[in-house]
């Protein structure tokens, strides 16, 4: 829903674009954009998602309860929160280096499931309608029913991967600090691997189809891309955190390498790289920094996709995030299919832990980008402090910067079209507003 106001005065033409409730995003947000003579006068991406105070009530809980609780920050990417909590707490408990390769492999498979379900949800149900001119996938299904059905089958396979390891796809129950409560059944894993292979072929086809048939808006920007950059695999759970502009830190240091700043036009917090400025996390950043680590099917697809859109990496246009998600989904489908196809139940599913006083910080790659956690524990495993930096609060400053860059392109458009163009840009980020309660903009304290 949008509204706009035009008034001519001596100061020139003023134009306001308001989107009171952003649709097809996760959580609650609004947009206010005011322009005068084609210049942005005021721009606010407003967030009215209520605060839920997770870090506050994590204090006093047992460390083993943490992954169950942090999952509830986000129903779409619970695995990201569980993985961040588990890795950080394993560091605090001093067992991080003892986690078996088999457990690490299963964690990657679990994460593949979340990437698949979340990416496909966003690509086809939330983002693609913008490119094809529909208000929703429900309307889009009338003209593109086969495509929607194919995407739902792939999304379901992603959910099934999470359910295989976690019991269910929203707030999975199988994950604990140290590993898993139980290893998946080998026969079920093999059956799912076969379905994943079918989806892999289809996803390759669909991704190339999208690259060849969609017209992508152009908004080339100078981004600082930030992602995990492991040496030997496409980023997911492990790796140093690097950027294309020289950031290169250990996992534990990341919380100190960035700062959350308050800026003049908004009381919202913006995460910036210290001494530099806004940065971008998520699929486009991961792909640009790690393309050479994609598995064979995605690696083979990448040049075809680049050729279809006429742009080689690095992509500086975040509308291509749709394709980056497509390529990452292909990668995740292949990794999950291979891992489950060769799966042998591990000797042990979790590392034994003796609680201790400690501190641990770790970030993993949520579908939307780095999700970083830090915890401090007492000797009996009780949490004494918690800090969580979700991906969308890191992208928030960049979303606003993109909107400022876009504004001159939309100033002459009719209201509805201008609002749609802004919304489309916001959806490039797959913003997860429920997660990002750190950048809330509020008016007044209520007595």
């Amino acid at each position, binding site marked *: *829903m949008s509204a706009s106001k035009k008034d001519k005065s001596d100061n020139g033409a003023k134009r306001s674009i308001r989107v009171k*409730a*952003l*649709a*097809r995003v*996760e*959580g*609650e947000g609004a947009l206010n954009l005011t322009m005068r003579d084609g210049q942005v006068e005021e721009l606010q991406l407003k967030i009215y998602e*209520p*605060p*839920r*105070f*997770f*870090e*506050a*009530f994590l*204090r006093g*809980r*047992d460390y083993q*309860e943490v992954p*169950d*609780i942090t999952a*509830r920050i*986000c*129903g779409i990417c*619970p695995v990201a929160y569980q993985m961040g909590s588990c890795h950080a707490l394993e560091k605090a408990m001093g067992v991080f280096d003892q986690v078996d390769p088999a457990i690490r492999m299963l964690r990657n498979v679990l994460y593949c499931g979340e990437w698949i379900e979340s990416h496909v*949800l966003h690509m086809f*149900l939330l983002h693609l*309608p913008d490119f094809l001119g529909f*208000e*929703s*996938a*429900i*309307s889009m*299904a009338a003209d593109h029913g086969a495509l929607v*059905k194919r995407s*739902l*089958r792939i*999304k*379901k396979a992603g*959910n099934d991967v999470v359910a295989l390891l976690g*019991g*269910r796809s*929203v*707030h999975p*129950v*199988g994950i*604990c600090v140290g590993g898993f*409560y*139980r290893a998946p059944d080998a026969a079920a894993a093999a059956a799912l691997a076969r379905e994943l292979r079918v989806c892999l072929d289809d996803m390759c086809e669909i991704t190339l189809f999208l690259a060849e048939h969609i017209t992508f808006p152009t908004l080339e920007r100078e981004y600082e891309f930030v992602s995990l950059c492991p040496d030997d695999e496409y980023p997911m759970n492990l790796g140093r955190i690097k950027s294309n502009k020289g950031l290169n830190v250990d996992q534990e240091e990341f919380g100190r390498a960035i700062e*959350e700043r*308050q800026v003049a036009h908004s*009381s919202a917090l913006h995460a910036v790289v210290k001494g530099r400025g806004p940065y971008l996390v998520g699929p486009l950043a991961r792909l640009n920094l790690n393309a050479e680590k994609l598995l064979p099917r995605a690696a083979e697809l990448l040049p075809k996709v680049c050729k279809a859109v006429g742009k080689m990496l690095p992509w500086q246009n975040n509308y291509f995030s749709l394709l980056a998600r497509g390529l990452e989904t292909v990668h995740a489908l292949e990794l999950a299919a291979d891992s489950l196809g060769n799966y042998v139940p591990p000797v042990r599913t979790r590392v034994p832990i003796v609680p201790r006083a400690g501190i641990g910080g770790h970030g993993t790659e949520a579908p939307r980008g780095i999700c970083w956690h830090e915890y401090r524990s007492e000797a009996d495993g009780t949490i004494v402090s918690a800090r969580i930096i979700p991906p969308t609060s890191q992208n928030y400053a960049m979303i606003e910067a993109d909107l400022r860059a876009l504004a001159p392109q939309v100033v002459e458009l009719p209201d509805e079209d201008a609002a749609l163009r802004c*919304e489309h840009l916001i959806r490039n980020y797959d913003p997860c507003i429920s997660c990002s309660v750190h950048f*809330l*903009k*509020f*008016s007044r*304290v*209520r007595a």
Partner: protein
Amino acid sequence: MPVQKVLESRASDKPRLAVFKFSSCDGCQLQLLNLEDELLNLVEAVEIAYFLEARRRELPPPYDIGLVEGSISTGDEEDRIQRVRRDCKYLITIGACATSGGIQALRNWANIDEFAGYVYPSPQLVSTLETATPIAAHVFVDFELRGCPVNQYQLLEVISALLAGRKPNIPTHSLCIECKRRGVPCVLVSGAQPCLGPITQTGCGALCPAGGRACYGCFGPMEQPNIASLGSWFTARLGYSPRKMKRMLRLFNGYLEPFKQASDHYERLEEGQER
């Protein structure tokens, strides 16, 4: 209002479904979109009139069925739920936040200013209520569907039942029955794990016990649970302290009776005010 009547009143078109979000994680409304095999049939059967997470188009009220996710934790939400109630003929709350206040109801036992000061650098800008409460504490609710998250097939059952004009078939017995039915070995008796299954409502499919861990109560209390009995088992046989008992009960459904009352009891024990 009888179900049949609700839906017959708009016999000429499809019943209108609306989905509303309050303080929550989005997971319960996501369960609708996670009905991959049924989704396209569902949108044939009902008109998705308002569902911000899925579509941009909004049809004006009234709505035949309103699904409400989330708890009431801000002043705006207090006002908005009244409008939502007015706009919906049949109001169904979905999930632990909407039916119990959810995990954010842990603030109800804390000092909200201290909480806000811990999380936000400028807590004076935070606009929030001191409590997070279930929808039924504010307006009349026609049906409450439990779970953190709700089971998507139970959600489909509730919608289907409304469309067919019958009572939703949602069992309210304990999770134990489900384990016995499925032949899942008891993690409490044979595994000495602190399982909340005996006092928790079924609905998840016994996921935790089947996966080798104790139930942590995400579907909330069953009908008339014997919490005292389970508590003395945990205390006597597993060596649980009142503090641990309190913590177990105060999770995703902690503010829902009788979990709330029992957790307050263990808190008093912890503080040495009893015995």
